[in-house]
């Protein structure tokens, strides 16, 4: 019925090639074939997004609620567009400005929404584990759009898709994730995904912003940008939140930029064809210079484009898994 279905793997690709998860709560819990499947389907969705007349509507008649407990223009817009391109009815709940302020708990909000029988809940919440908690309480599929400093799985998938389109592979690549790893859900999801897919992951940043025992996640840790970037195929910058800048974790923006900012000088240590990535929004002149952010090696805009495709693939996959499951005897 749709272009997306044409992208489905053939049965001869093996039994693993069916997506069986009715929620996407994190990259943790996905197998490498799960990840490959989502990336493949997202690649097909990229093409669909480019067609002028997007008639395909696999989610026609389904209801998607975006439940954002933290303001996020970019991610929310990306999920909204993804849902609409699939034909779903999309409702945005800006929870930060509604009933939660009146004292309603996460569970109460979820139960209220659940009573309206949505098919898919997309949740962003400042607390780690919130998406998992919600998934235990509602009857529909839950997609984690970021929970505290825990996971942001669709970001990691869109990063993987972007890398794969440029490098043709993920396994064997050296990926340097730089900056505030400690507070970053993007970094956690990427570490899990990239190591699972066989990439060599490095964390680069001041030790105050690298989590304790990070080495035990199967990564290498560097506090010297030059060593950390040396020969890297992908340089993934993280946003330094304003509230971290003022002397609690790093003393000042100028010192941070000098030691951990990505500019022409530090880029010279990476491989000559290294990709530059950033999950956005960028702090120009804090973690990245404009020259590099807008330069020929930057794929930052493409990441945004891939975001829509990945979210289309993810929502369709979890709904299919959910439909299959509900069709089965319990």
């Amino acid at each position, binding site marked *: 019925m749709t272009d997306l279905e044409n992208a489905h793997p053939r049965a001869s690709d093996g039994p693993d090639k069916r997506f069986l998860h009715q929620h996407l709560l994190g990259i943790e819990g996905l197998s490498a074939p799960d990840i490959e499947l989502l990336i493949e389907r997202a690649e097909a969705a990229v093409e669909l997004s480019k067609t002028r007349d997007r008639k395909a509507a696999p989610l026609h008649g389904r209801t998607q609620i975006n439940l954002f407990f933290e303001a996020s223009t970019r991610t929310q817009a990306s999920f909204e567009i993804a849902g609409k391109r699939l034909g779903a009815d999309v409702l945005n709940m800006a929870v930060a400005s509604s009933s939660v302020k009146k004292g309603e708990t996460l569970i109460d909000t979820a139960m209220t929404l659940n009573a309206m029988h949505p098919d898919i809940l997309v949740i962003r919440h400042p607390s780690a584990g919130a998406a998992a908690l919600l998934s235990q309480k509602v009857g529909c599929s839950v997609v984690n759009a970021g929970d505290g400093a825990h996971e942001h799985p669709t970001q990691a998938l869109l990063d993987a898709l972007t890398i794969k389109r440029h490098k043709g592979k993920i396994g064997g690549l050296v990926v340097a994730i730089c900056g505030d790893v400690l507070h970053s859900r993007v970094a956690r999801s990427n570490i899990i995904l990239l190591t699972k897919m066989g990439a060599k992951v490095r964390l680069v940043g001041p*030790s105050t912003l690298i989590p304790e025992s990070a080495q035990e996640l199967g990564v290498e840790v560097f506090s*010297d940008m030059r060593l950390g970037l040396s020969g890297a195929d992908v340089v993934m910058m993280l946003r330094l939140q304003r509230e971290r800048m003022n*002397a*609690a974790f790093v*003393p000042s923006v100028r*010192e941070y930029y000098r030691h951990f900012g990505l500019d022409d000088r530090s880029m010279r240590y990476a491989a000559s064809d290294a990709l530059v990535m950033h999950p956005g929004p960028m702090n120009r002149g804090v973690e990245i210079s404009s020259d590099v952010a807008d330069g020929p090696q930057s794929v930052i805009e493409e990441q945004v484009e891939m975001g829509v495709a990945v979210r289309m693939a993810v929502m369709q996959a979890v709904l299919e898994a959910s439909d299959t499951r509900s069709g089965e005897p319990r």
Partner: protein
Amino acid sequence: MSIFFATPNGLVPSSGRSAWINASIYDPSQGLSGVRGGILISDGRIEAIGAEVHSENLGSDVEVRDLGGAVLIPGLIDMRCHISEPGGESRETIASASRAAAAGGITSVVMMPDTDPAMDDVALIDLALRTSRETAITRILPSAATTRNFGGREMTEYGLMQAAGAVMLSQAGTTIMDAGVVRRSMTYAADFDMLYGHVSHDPHLAGGGVMNESVLSTRLGLPGMPREAELLPLERDLRLARLSKVRYHAEKISTEMSESAVARAKDEGLAVSAGVTINHLLLTEDDIGEYRTFFKLAPPLRSDEDRIALLSAVKSGTIDVICSAHNPQGVDRKRLPFEEATDGAIGLETLLAAGLELVHSDQLSLDDLVRAMANRPAKLLKLESGRLAPGANADFAVVDPDLKWTVNVGQLQSKSKNTCFEDREFRGRVIETVVGGRTVFSLHGNASAA
């Protein structure tokens, strides 16, 4: 002959070759313990040292000075010196402190960051180095404040200040009480391999204490502070040093309990070092006598048992460094009732003489002194001085170990006169101090100076 001091020349090293011969050389880091020989200097650095340097094998281009058997040791490195420039030039300037240091055989002085404004910014490090180039005759090594304005909350720019020339971190006389800040600042300092100096003093536990808590404080009716006020933050720091893997330096410990805590940390293999002031090796709380405020120090003078434990810790190497803790204070801050007086005493000029008193009384050896006042500070601060090795800076002191002299406060070089050793007779005195191959101080006038 009058005492000679060089004029500041921006610490430009000497040019050409010169030699000091017929000396008795002590430097345990080089295995030299009373070796009769000389030192050959080339362009401000040591070219050769030891028995092979004597009058017969020196070329005619070498300017030679005969020391007549005097003792030659590496120039001392004082890891803790308060210099109130900028902000308190009436108490001390970089120029006056460097003259006092030179007269005491000290060739490198670590300047505490408690100037006004505090040395918590690159500009202040630059200023200290520029002022020392213009006015100092010894090396002045600025330290950087660990937190902004010593507030104990916000980290300063360690990377930028290190690049500007700061040699270590210090909170000067204060202790960071927020353990989270200590942990993060240690972790950040470790990235730059910067030595993390800290004094440990819990003001809450110390209460209003102004001296060691003991029967003496009870008798004097002065509020005492328990030894635990030093121990608790120290033990916290040692645990956090293990967590953060920073090179930690307990800048001045004063009790047997503190010394044991450092020893345990070292046994664990931590990169931990400790310092003690010369005052705490020579004096005890009994010296306070009738409320003598020049003996009001931070940390306070303790008991003789503590003093003896500290001495043996210096011998064993548990305590790495002996410092002067030079802290110039004017009479307006010292000639006050004991409780109101400011802590601290000057000590640059008497550091070595006081140390030699411990040598003459067999409490320490000269090798112990050289290790604690030159070799180990150089190693902790990664300096090219502090040892008599070929290639190192030609920084050394010539000492007459038996010359008797009396401390006359009017003749001290420091602008402040708050010494613990007023009118004390010492045996042993620095007779010449050389920085970068250039004589910057000579007790017997300019005759031998280039």
